[in-house]
């Protein structure tokens, strides 16, 4: 049986997540999980505010910005008023709504998502520079994290053919 085969398939991806917003973290998680599901080796690296996604105390409370987020709209399509976004509880409320929509599409919470990625062989790393800056140690980070590494180690992880580095 002749099947359509992908020419020069991707062998490995290194995904860097530098932001801590709900949507930015999930973009990186979906990309990493998608890679392992396709049999592509995946390494996921969190830096700066992305460390929130792998910090035990913060990983289940990620939020999306309701102030200064020009892409955010009200249901119905009109732009989200900044004056609404600054009110107490609005950021939390909108973030919860987004999480509910994701749950409907069977997208898991961050912890479970990391379980899925590591179950498929994906590896999770934290940036040493950012961890030092935020005074985080390995104990503060989720048990999914393989190691805290330097930028040199990061580039070593990207060695090989058929590798792509994706920055989110």
């Amino acid at each position, binding site marked *: 049986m002749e099947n359509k085969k992908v020419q020069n398939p991707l062998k490995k991806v290194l995904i860097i997540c530098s932001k801590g917003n709900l949507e930015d973290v999930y973009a990186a998680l979906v990309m990493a999980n998608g890679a392992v*599901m396709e*049999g592509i080796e995946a390494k996921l690296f969190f830096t700066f505010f992305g460390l929130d996604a792998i910090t035990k105390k913060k990983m289940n409370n990620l939020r999306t910005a309701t102030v200064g987020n020009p892409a955010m709209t009200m249901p119905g399509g009109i732009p989200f008023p900044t004056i609404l976004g600054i009110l107490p509880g609005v950021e939390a409320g909108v973030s919860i709504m987004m999480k509910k929509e994701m749950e409907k599409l*069977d997208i*898991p919470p961050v912890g479970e998502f990391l379980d*899925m990625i590591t179950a498929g062989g994906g590896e999770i790393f934290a940036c040493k520079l950012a961890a030092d800056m935020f005074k985080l140690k390995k104990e503060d980070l989720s048990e999914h994290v393989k190691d805290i590494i330097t930028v040199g180690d990061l580039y070593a992880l990207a060695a090989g053919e058929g590798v792509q580095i994706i920055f989110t």
Partner: protein
Amino acid sequence: MATTTIAGKEINVNDEGYLTDPTQWTKEIAIEIANEEGITLTDKHFELIEYLRNQHLSGVQLTIRKVGTSGIVDIKGFYELFPGGPLKKGSRIAGIPKPVSCI
């Protein structure tokens, strides 16, 4: 779309090798497709294949998360049964379309 012969039966497949008509599937077809993927099917595989087929035929959108909570395998087990693309390979062997899902 093309017609090909697998396990002595003529069946319709798309250009990625997925059955276009799940009702044409038989266990022998599953075994032969699995051999192509380098997988030898065991009872556990068939248990999972039956689950995948039932979910698809009931119109449920399959995700890897669902399989992990199916009670038949956990996600690590799923990757062990169908290495290098569990949902992709599992669905092809099960004679159902490739799931259209990003998760």
